[in-house]
């Protein structure tokens, strides 16, 4: 299928050079003189010529061009409706070009809901003008008067004789006609509109639902590389001397081991890495050692309200009437209030991404920016090219609601592309997007006013402090291209003037520079300002003893507002009241209804009014937990003419959900430095599906009026409506969103429900300890004898008395029987030889893995039969001596990290089979470092150690026990050497005996939990549970295997089932009878449900972990969601295993069914990990004491990652 011509041109020149087209153009509007404190406007470059608005092609297709972009709002669809309607062409004949700088007009940033209200105007005029020209052409062709012609579906016809017709395509065929936009062109009257005002399906959704749409994240260019950036330590702050001046050094050698690194790019504080593959770029950004100067942090943000009060500001009075000071001096009922808005995030679901290509004197950048022309000017400045030499191609991206990191990442990509000369795609991480996006600023609103003697609002003295600016594109600051100064903007005045007829009024904006990097976010300064206006007037109504809606109406004279409020409250069944009602409250659930109204006034003061909006919110407040649920929202809106009613309703829905989320949940947490701490969704929760209210939209019929901004405008009164509803429910006024359970509990004076556990039902664990006794403990005499022997042995060692055994030629594997090899494989699996004798990423059993011991770091040896570096020249005698006595072939003592104290128990047959198996493997040449520990742990000392702790000899069965038990004991004690990890060691590093056997120990930073009755497992172990745990790597009653145990379970898979069963039989015998384990599990579940209190920790857990870990009320995902209450790691005395799993994740589980867990190392701070761990302990092990000093434990484990 030939694509329509309308979709083809990429640049203005393509339009100008085309034949068979009619274009409507305009001269670029004159540069707007820069306005102080407003978002930068970038004037058009005259060298780029006229701006094209509409093109009608000879194939009947039409291009519409607009400088604004579709952010998921449906703008592409609505603009196409306008063009198609005005031109009288079929809707699908129109292709919209949005945002691409090489072709669309420069209409500034897509902000303030102004796209339809303002930016569609020239487009509509151009379409009308094109239609006029086509009609005129047809009039000449048919020699009739213009009035005799009509248009429909891209055809002009003679109205009384429709057979006389000509298509638009024919009228433009062969020529190139260019019309200058005539702003006086008449447009269609409402009565004749066919598409505008009709619901039209979004044009972009089918491709998106099919996975065919190309977002900026999906751009792929030939030869494209992948980049990542490394950001400086001054997290989320963009002004100050340290910005661009903090880098000390970058150590490129730290990533030399990674394959396919193309470049490390460093320009002052800008640091980026480029690699052939994305996962390598990701690993490089993580591994690159970068040294920064210390950053002291942001002072004073521990108290945001005070920080806003004291931030240097310029007071600017924007409205004044009457005599506020005099009125306040004489007021009958004064009321002074402060309202505080928190820092919030745009929180785009997809972290920003861009692709750039550098062609020397020109560059191309693919971006999801909201303001492509402004971005182009920034990029030009960054790389010192003229703006027209940079082509900014705008693609759809993850929704943005102001200014996220889309521009930042485009600049990052351009720098990396310039450095490499190849196209580079840069993807920011979730952590970077959360930390660095320009925040929606905190804002402080202060009101003094009150009522006169008749209960009318008399005065309103309002000031608002909004610390935000345009958030300069980061790379400009990091590279020092632009000085990182704290510039104040004048944008706090949006909707700062209340809509009410207060007799004496003064409104002042306190213009101030940002504290944290901040820029516009949906409802720019208006949402907070309106929150204050609408909360305050509710407070006045209560003080006056008047229904809040009636009180507002007394002070409103705008007829459209009054009609809207009437329609909205009618739909919502508003019940007039003069005091908090708590209607229909039920037990601990208190119910309330709240109202608020606003007309969003945006852009430079005095600005433009967008739609009128009224909200009625119904809430439920749990007076014990403090949780607020918004149950129903009725939104009334007067948006003037509506282009696409379906799209308008979707926009309102979206804004209700987002506003409810911001009101109830959203606040950027700040760390001790005052820097943003949220790096993922647990620390910055947004509304979940569970919390979405019923939403009803009331639309006022105003098709004859000009269209007004819809989406953003509908959000503005939302927060106050919710706060007012909470007041109606509980009688307490909340003036500082978000209205979290803690806020509500504090307001109600309710103590935080104790995390103290409901007493755990005494677990049905029979007491009576069973002490496993390792056989053959020595008597005092044998110890003495051994010491003598050891001393002799040591002397011998020093004198070289342990002989080297002669090297032999390589064994011929064909001499070993298949049965021997098979048995040897099982012994190797039971012994997990490969776990220690394989280096990460290395060949199995070829050695080279480093092992940290308390006495020093060792390197494991090569077990393959390579003659020079492995066991190739070892006779069986040498092998058996090493296994039984810990003596290497050359006569040196082996360190007992090699568990010969266990292997000595192997039977002769197993030992021989193992030898045969190892000798039959392919030889691998791998020279491993020979390590000698420093004195006093040198090899000679091992002789004494052996005398004390080595008890050579094969396992002797216990005749009082059955065959299975003896087989299990043999596997555990000999090949399995379970005690090597699970038995605590004495000062000299030997496994302790007696009751300490298998009683749990620390190994490589992990706790090998007790396997005996000392187990921390809350549900008692049974033979069956041991069997399933070792076989599957997980059970419902004991959770899943992690850490160094995972590869052990994988090895056990090659053991016969009877052997694993035998191990289980033996291990279970170390425990008493288990009793009713199901009852224990039930009581654990009961106890953990009882203390699920909403708190920062609970929200962190829910957001970060809750997709996989939940009690059955969440999604079903691949992997096992096992009850956390059953994991022994949560019941242990040490938090180490839990903390390691949180920090390091589960990347290589014992079995595939267990599933995978990400490492939260980079996503959660020490404090946050500690918070989650403490929460899990309190919730799932409520009978255990809290772990002390968790935060330092996190830091310690972070500093010593699992090798």
């Amino acid at each position, binding site marked *: 299928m030939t694509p329509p011509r309308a979709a083809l041109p990429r640049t203005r020149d393509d339009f100008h050079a085309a034949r068979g087209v009619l274009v409507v153009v305009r001269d670029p509007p004159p540069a707007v003189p820069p306005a102080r404190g407003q978002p930068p406007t970038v004037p058009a470059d005259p060298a780029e010529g006229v701006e094209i608005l509409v093109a009608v092609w000879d194939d009947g297709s039409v291009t519409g061009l607009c400088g604004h972009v579709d952010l998921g709002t449906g703008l592409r669809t609505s603009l196409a409706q306008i063009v198609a309607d005005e031109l009288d062409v079929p809707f699908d004949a129109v292709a919209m070009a949005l945002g691409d700088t090489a072709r669309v007009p420069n209409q500034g940033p897509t902000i303030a809901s102004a796209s339809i209200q303002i930016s569609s105007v020239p487009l509509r005029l151009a379409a009308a003008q094109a239609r006029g020209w086509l009609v005129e052409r047809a009039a000449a062709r048919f020699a009739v008067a213009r009035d005799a012609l009509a248009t429909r579906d891209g055809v002009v016809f003679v109205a009384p004789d429709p057979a006389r017709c000509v298509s638009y395509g024919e009228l433009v065929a062969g020529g190139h006609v260019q019309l200058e936009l005539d702003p006086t062109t008449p447009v269609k009257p409402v009565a004749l509109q066919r598409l505008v005002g009709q619901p039209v399906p979004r044009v972009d959704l089918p491709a998106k639902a099919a996975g065919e749409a190309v977002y900026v994240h999906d751009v792929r260019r030939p030869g494209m590389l992948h980049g990542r950036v490394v950001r400086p330590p001054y997290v989320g702050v963009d002004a100050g001397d340290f910005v661009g001046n903090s880098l000390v050094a970058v150590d490129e050698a730290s990533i030399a081991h990674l394959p396919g690194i193309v470049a490390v790019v460093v320009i002052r504080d800008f640091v980026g890495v480029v690699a052939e593959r994305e996962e390598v770029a990701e690993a490089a950004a993580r591994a690159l050692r970068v040294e920064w100067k210390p950053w002291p942090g942001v002072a004073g943000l521990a108290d945001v309200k005070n920080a806003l009060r004291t931030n240097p500001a310029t007071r600017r009075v924007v409205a004044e009437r009457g005599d506020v000071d005099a009125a306040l001096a004489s007021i009958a009922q004064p009321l002074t209030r402060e309202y505080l808005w928190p820092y919030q995030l745009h929180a785009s679901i997809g972290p920003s991404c861009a692709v750039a290509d550098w062609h020397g004197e020109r560059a191309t950048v693919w971006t999801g920016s909201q303001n492509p022309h402004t971005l182009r000017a920034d990029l030009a400045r960054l790389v010192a090219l003229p703006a027209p030499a940079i082509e900014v191609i705008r693609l759809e991206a993850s929704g943005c609601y102001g200014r996220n990191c889309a521009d930042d990442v485009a600049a990052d990509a351009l720098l990396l592309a310039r450095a490499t000369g190849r196209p580079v795609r840069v993807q920011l991480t979730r952590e970077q997007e959360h930390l660095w996006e320009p925040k929606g600023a905190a804002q402080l609103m202060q009101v003094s006013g009150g009522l006169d003697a008749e209960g009318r609002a008399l005065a309103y003295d309002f000031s608002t402090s909004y610390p935000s600016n345009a958030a300069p594109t980061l790379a400009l600051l990091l590279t020092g291209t632009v000085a990182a100064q704290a510039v104040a903007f004048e944008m706090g005045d949006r909707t700062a003037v209340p809509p009410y007829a207060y007799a004496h009024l003064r409104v002042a904006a306190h213009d101030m520079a940002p504290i944290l990097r901040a820029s516009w976010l949906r409802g720019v300064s208006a949402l907070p300002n309106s929150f204050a206006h609408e909360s305050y007037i509710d407070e006045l109504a209560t003080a006056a003893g008047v229904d809040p809606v009636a009180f507002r109406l007394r002070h409103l004279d705008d007829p459209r507002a009054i009609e809207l409020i009437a329609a909205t409250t009618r739909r919502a069944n508003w019940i007039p009241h003069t005091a908090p009602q708590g209607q229909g409250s039920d037990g601990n659930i208190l119910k309330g209804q709240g109202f608020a109204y606003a007309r969003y006034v945006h852009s430079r003061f005095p600005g433009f009014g967008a739609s009128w909006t009224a909200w009625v919110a119904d809430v439920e407040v749990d007076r014990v937990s403090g949780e607020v649920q918004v149950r129903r929202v009725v939104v009334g809106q007067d948006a003037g003419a509506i282009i696409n009613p379906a799209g308008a309703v979707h926009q309102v829905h*979206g804004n209700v959900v987002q506003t409810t989320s911001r009101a109830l949940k959203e606040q950027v947490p700040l760390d001790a430095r005052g820097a943003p701490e949220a790096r*993922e969704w647990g620390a910055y929760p947004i509304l979940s599906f*569970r919390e979405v209210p019923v939403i009803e939209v009331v639309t006022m019929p105003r098709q004859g009026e000009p269209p007004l901004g819809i989406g953003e405008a509908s959000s503005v009164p939302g927060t106050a409506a919710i706060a007012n509803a909470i007041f109606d429910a509980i009688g307490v006024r909340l003036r500082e969103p978000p209205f979290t359970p803690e806020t509500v509990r504090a307001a109600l004076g309710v103590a935080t429900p104790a995390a103290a556990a409901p007493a755990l039902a005494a677990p049905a664990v029979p007491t009576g300890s069973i002490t496993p006794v390792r056989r053959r403990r020595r008597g005092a005499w044998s110890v003495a004898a051994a010491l003598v022997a050891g001393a002799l042995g040591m002397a011998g060692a020093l004198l070289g008395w342990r002989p080297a055994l002669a090297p032999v030629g390589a064994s011929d594997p064909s001499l070993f029987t298949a049965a021997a090899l098979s048995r040897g494989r099982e012994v190797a699996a039971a012994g997990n030889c490969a776990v220690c004798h394989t280096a990460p990423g290395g060949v199995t059993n070829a050695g080279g893995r480093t092992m940290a011991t308390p006495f020093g770091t060792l390197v494991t040896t090569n077990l393959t039969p390579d003659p020079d570096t492995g066991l190739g020249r070892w006779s069986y005698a040498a092998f058996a001596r090493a296994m039984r006595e810990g003596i290497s072939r050359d006569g040196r003592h082996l360190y007992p990290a090699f568990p010969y104290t266990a292997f000595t128990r192997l039977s002769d047959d197993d030992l021989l089979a193992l030898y045969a198996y190892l000798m039959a493997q392919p030889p691998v040449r791998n020279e491993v470092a020979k390590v000698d520990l420093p004195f006093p742990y040198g090899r000679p000392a091992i002789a004494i150690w052996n005398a004390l702790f080595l008890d050579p000899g094969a396992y002797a069965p216990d005749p009082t026990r059955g065959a299975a038990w003896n087989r299990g004991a043999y596997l555990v004690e000999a090949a399995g050497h379970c005690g090597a990890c699970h038995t605590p060691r004495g000062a000299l590093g030997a496994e302790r005996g007696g009751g300490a056997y298998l009683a749990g120990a620390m190994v490589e930073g992990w706790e090998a939990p007790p396997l005996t009755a000392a187990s921390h497992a809350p549900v008692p172990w049974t033979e069956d549970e041991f069997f399933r745990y070792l076989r599957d790597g997980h059970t419902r009653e004991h959770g899943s295997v992690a850490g160094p145990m995972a590869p052990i379970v994988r090895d056990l898979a090659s053991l016969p089932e009877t052997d694993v069963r035998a191990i289980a039989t033996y291990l279970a015998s170390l425990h008493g009878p288990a009793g009713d384990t199901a009852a224990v599990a039930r009581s654990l579940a009961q106890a953990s449900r009882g203390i699920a209190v909403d708190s920062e920790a609970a929200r962190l857990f829910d957001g970060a972990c809750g997709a996989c870990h939940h009690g059955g009320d969440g999604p079903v995902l691949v992997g096992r969601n096992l009850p956390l209450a059953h994991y022994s790691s949560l019941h242990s005395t040490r938090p180490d295993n839990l903390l390691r799993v949180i920090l390091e994740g589960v990347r290589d589980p014992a079995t595939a069914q267990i599933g995978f867990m990400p490492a939260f190392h980079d996503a959660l701070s020490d404090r946050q990990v500690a918070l989650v761990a403490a929460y899990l302990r309190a919730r799932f092990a409520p009978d255990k004491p809290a772990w002390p000093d968790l935060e330092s434990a996190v830091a310690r484990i972070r500093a010593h990652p699992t090798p």
Partner: protein
Amino acid sequence: MSGTGSPPLRLTVNGRDHDVAATPGTALLTVLRNDLGLNGPKYGCGLGECGACTVLVDGVAARACVIPAGGVAGRAITTLEGLAQEGMLHPVQRAFIAEEAAQCGYCLNGMIMTTVALLARRPQPTDAEIRAEFARSLCRCGAHVEILRAVHHAAALVAHEAK
């Protein structure tokens, strides 16, 4: 190839076997997007928190950003691109289009894939079951109302077409 001489990683995606040059520890999401050129699954958080990257593994929803590709070798992986049958979009996709259940659409992949997995398990889910299933699927634009409708619509379509 990966250059280490190790055998290529073999994945079964949308019914076809693919040998890819990635190391087994590479996130499945990265392999699907970069080695197989699939745009359906999206990178959202890399932590399995948001659901934008959801695919099906043996018919069960899976968050591709937290799964090492080597961990699902040999299992049947389905992406958004693999739902259509004989040139016809899957009923869940059609239901989402009909209800206009997206604004920017970045989360749409996860919403559709999660619905397909849910309906395979619970053909007629209640509203509470749907909300629980989507409790950790994040949408920032606020298309929740339309998404909930789309899931119900999809359940009806699937049931109807099964007849």
